[in-house]
């Protein structure tokens, strides 16, 4: 069977920049695909290219096996229909007058709609449950009713592919569900191919068998919800922490990770962070956001963590770029760490150059300060010639250092272990 949609290496954009960069996508007839991605990812541009509204600069685009450019507008309207975010007209058309426009490409210029057209229009209105509203002015309807009319208008075109651009963006949750169930019926009963832009990841996961995640004009992930809604992927695309957990039926549910709240000044502590190569940037940022005092080192000057720490006004112990840590820098770090009530080791690899940083942790533990060590793949982070880092870490754990994986664990530990408020007596 020929696919409903075949894009091969499609590039398109506006004057300055490409919005779609060599995008390839195939959608089989009868599929329901959700297009996800942050604002500016290229979702709307993709729709504009699919309907011939915006020309592709390069690549080929086939609709039901035919080159899009070779399809006349009237024919194209019978293949693809679009439901916009909001259908708006400055004039007070009735519902039926608007739905008639779905037959625009078929109707004779000289005559009124014939019986066959009327039947199609009525079926479209019946399907979307707006038949009783047919004589009402469109602008007096509620948002949910208006969206159903917009879908009726699209159905009156009798398309084989329907593109919905965030059809539920302006609706409250019950109307959202209504519209999505309507689309589901169309997809199942009429074998309509559906392509659907959504910002609601959860509703998309609930209804669509296939999700396509776009970012910067490229497809980042394409597959069933469980394969696309992954924390690492979403964090990269949406630049924020999202938590993904399966619900009772196994559908992934995405929720934004709660941002750490600033804690009262008397509860803040002084933390020394041992990191490098970007392993500490996020932690440093979150510690500062929470209001803790942060020191850092030893780091090589120019390291991305060193830059981040400087930007966050953290006190730093620095060594020359690409040099092993020397005694002077280590002493400086010792001074910084001495005042800290906790030392945190990030997911940093240890080599001959920086393994001395472990001394800071050992001394802190000896002094009674807390030590938190990222336990991610400890055995693969030891690059010292004598493999001395791993035993030293293990011994730290043995003496009471705490393991951590996620940022919120560190923040919770720091909050839990703060000095108890001084009580009288």
């Amino acid at each position, binding site marked *: 069977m020929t696919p409903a949609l075949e894009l091969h290496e499609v590039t398109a954009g506006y004057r300055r920049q490409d919005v779609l960069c060599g995008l390839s996508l195939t959608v089989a007839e009868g599929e329901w695909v959700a297009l996800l991605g942050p604002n500016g990812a290229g979702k709307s541009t993709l729709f504009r290219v699919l309907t*011939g509204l915006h020309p592709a600069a390069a690549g080929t685009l086939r609709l039901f096996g035919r080159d899009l450019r070779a399809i006349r*507008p009237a024919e*194209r*309207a019978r293949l693809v229909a679009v439901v916009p975010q909001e*259908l708006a*007209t*400055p004039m007070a*058309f009735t519902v039926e007058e608007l739905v008639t*426009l779905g037959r625009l490409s078929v109707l004779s210029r000289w005559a009124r709609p014939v019986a066959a057209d009327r039947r199609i229009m009525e079926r479209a209105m019946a399907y979307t449950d707006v038949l009783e509203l047919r004589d009402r002015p469109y602008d007096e309807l509620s948002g949910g009713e208006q969206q159903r009319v917009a879908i009726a208008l699209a159905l009156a075109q009798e398309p084989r592919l329907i593109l919905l651009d965030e059809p539920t963006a302006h609706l409250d949750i019950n109307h959202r569900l209504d519209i999505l169930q309507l689309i589901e019926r169309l997809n199942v009963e009429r074998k309509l191919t559906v392509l659907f832009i959504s910002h609601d990841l959860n509703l998309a996961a609930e209804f669509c068998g296939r999700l396509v995640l776009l970012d910067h004009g490229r497809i980042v992930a394409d597959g069933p919800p469980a394969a696309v809604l992954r924390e690492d992927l979403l964090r990269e695309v949406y630049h924020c922490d999202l938590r993904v957990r399966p619900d009772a039926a196994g559908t992934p549910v995405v929720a934004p990770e709660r941002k750490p709240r600033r804690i009262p000044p008397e509860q803040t502590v002084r933390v020394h962070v041992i990191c490098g190569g970007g392993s500490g940037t996020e932690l440093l940022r979150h510690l500062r956001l929470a209001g803790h005092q942060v020191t850092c080192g030893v780091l090589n000057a120019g390291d991305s963590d060193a830059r981040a720490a400087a930007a966050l006004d953290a006190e730093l112990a620095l060594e020359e770029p690409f040099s092993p840590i020397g005694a002077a820098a280590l002493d400086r770090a010792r001074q910084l760490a001495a005042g800290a009530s906790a030392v945190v080791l990030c997911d940093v690899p240890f080599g001959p150059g920086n393994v001395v940083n472990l001394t800071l942790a050992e001394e802190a533990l000896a002094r009674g300060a807390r030590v938190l060590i990222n336990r991610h793949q400890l055995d693969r982070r030891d690059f010292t010639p004598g493999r001395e880092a791993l035993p030293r870490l293990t011994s730290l754990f043995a003496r009471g250092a705490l393991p951590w994986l996620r940022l919120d664990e560190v923040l919770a530990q720091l909050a839990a272990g703060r000095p108890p408020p001084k009580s009288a007596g």
Partner: protein
Amino acid sequence: MRKSWIPWLLLAVAPLVLGGALLIGPTPVALLDPHTALGRAVLLLRLNRVGAGFAVGAALAGAGVVLQALLRNPLAEPYVLGVSSGAALGAALAIFFGLTTLGALVLPASAFALGLATMALVYALGSHHGAPSLYGLLLSGVIVSAVASSLLMLLISLAPVEGLHSITWWMLGNLQSASGPLLAGCVALMAIAGGGVWLFARELDALTLGREMAHHLGARPGLVVGLGLAGATLLTAAAVALAGLIGFVGLVVPHVMRSLIGPAHRRLLPTAALVGGLLLVLCDALARTVAAPLEVPVGVVTALLGGPFFIVVLRRRRKAGWVE
């Protein structure tokens, strides 16, 4: 609820209005005897005049309907957009250079040429990134209209004395000077333009949803906008060639009719044309009688009636069929 009987009622009333207008005038009714030479002459003049009035009113209302739909602009109208002034300048140039003796269609043709240029200029000035904006169009319409009017003034001040009078009449708008061949030529142009635009009535409906939506529905928005603007300009040019500058018919009539029978253009366009024609015939009858035996230019009457009416309609815009 829309009243679908209204167009039929109007159609029934039309002969009464037109017949009544034939009987009104400075000459006593008794003289309108078609059996005498004088009676035939007076009757022919009156027929000409009523016919011209109807045609001009219908064309202007039709042009208003089309422009308002294409530009999605409730205030679009040939007069407001400066198309009328541009067309008048074209007609005045033809008169000034004595080209009108070359044929009946020279006047509307030159009016069309400059009207089209004006339309294109206003559209370009009033658009941002290819999309015309409401205020942009009004503003550029006012400016272009002012420039065209100044050029018209220049022509008047340069014109020989005998040409002066007829050019001045252009500016005021009147139905006196329509000759038989000119009337026939202009009516033919109006019929072509009006009929042509009517065939695209559903595309006009679709374009009020925006160009993108019209595209999705299978129309060719660029083509329809181009044809529609040209058609509206041709309607305006023919009206200006017949009667000079007559404002507000193209603004008020579409609004009122849209509120009465709805915005669907297959019905709205002919009904608005019918009402525009009848309205201008009535206004002209008033212009002939209100200060008899003197005559008031009909453009003055439509402006005096249309201005206040327009304000009322604007205040009730929602009710009149326009959503904010």
